[in-house]
């Protein structure tokens, strides 16, 4: 099965939103609106990057994130497909969940008396571990 012929994604290279995030969001949105269904084939990284005039690495990053979130699945040389449970996984807003977790942690740190500078330094240090 392949994606519907008229299904297109559009990116804005002047947008403040990173290009890979635009690709991720639009593929998720296509899954949510059922424009893309489980088992539908997606274009290769090279094809999509070429058509959008983007670097291959940008599209590869978007595909990696989608694969991590079980929205898409790569089956070797056969290509990339929409995951069987993509619709369920799409409804989970991982960036939103991450923001909420961080907000709660920051709030706890502030309540304990940590300054914003101390929180930033601790966050950077934790990210490097």
């Amino acid at each position, binding site marked *: 099965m392949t994606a519907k012929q008229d299904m297109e994604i559009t990116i804005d290279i002047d947008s403040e939103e990173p290009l890979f995030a635009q690709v991720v969001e639009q593929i998720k949105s*296509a899954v949510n609106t059922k424009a893309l269904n489980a088992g539908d084939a997606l274009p290769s990284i090279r094809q999509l990057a*070429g058509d959008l005039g983007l670097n291959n690495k940008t599209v590869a990053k978007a595909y990696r994130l989608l694969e991590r979130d079980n929205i898409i699945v790569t089956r070797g040389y056969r290509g990339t497909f929409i995951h069987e449970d993509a619709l369920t996984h799409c409804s989970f807003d991982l960036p939103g969940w991450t923001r909420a977790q961080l907000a709660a942690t920051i709030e706890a740190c502030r309540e304990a008396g940590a300054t914003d500078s101390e929180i930033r330094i601790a966050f950077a240090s934790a990210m490097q571990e």
Partner: protein
Amino acid sequence: MPADFDMTAVLVLMYAVFLSQIYLISVHYPRKISARIREVIEAYPPADYPRLYPGPYAWYAESAKRRGLGLFMAINYTIAALGLVILGAMLGNGYEPALLGGDEIFVMLYFMLQMCPLFYIQIAEFRHYALMRQQFTETRRSASLAPRRMSQFVPPKLVALAALLFVLWLVFYLSGKGAMATWGSEVYATLVMITGMNMFYVFYMRRMVFGKKLDPYRADEDRDRQVRVMGKIYVLSSIGVSLFLSLTQAADQYGFEIFDPVLVSFYLQLCIIGGLGFVFRDIAVSSLNFEVYRKQTASQP
């Protein structure tokens, strides 16, 4: 051992094929190319379709509209005249083709000369696309989420036939050349050249199907059609090379080397008919979407 032939018949055939080569490559197709370029310039002028004429191409187009492709045609006609002079000299000097072949090298050299103006047009086309890409300023870009497959552009049965003929030629060629110990450098050169050519076709097709658009404005349907035509040309070219090499090998083995120059000329003409001919037949100017190059008004995106 060369077979016996009626030399008059061989010469008549040879002159007829060479005359056809001169006319086809240096007169007929250059005229068609020139007419096609003028058709585009007149129907889609720079004032209304500025995206089609990046940088200096608007000036070139105006100049070509007024004077035609004078230099291009003059060079082609000069090469055609040179070909006729060579044929006249051959006729005057009572030329007879070598019984053991070898004269085909002159046919190939003249063909290369004939191809120079066409190569120039090809290089100009790539420069044109490069300038278009430089001037492409669209910030919103769309792409289809339908994957493309090579089989959409090149018929798999034709590819299988090309592969089969390549293998058959290889077996025929190597069996004709005997044991490996006796292979000369020309055997290795032929093997590398023909394998390399087929690999180049595969590489370039993949690039056209999956790579970046040469012309950033071109409509997807037009691009697909062009890739399909190029795919057909490449596969037929691969089939043609295998058949041609098998024929010349057979000519060498069975004493028909005297026909080598005719075979080479005939094959080269077929390549041009199969290449340029398909492009003219399958990609008519009127069938292309030129609206993508039209000047944008304030209300358009």
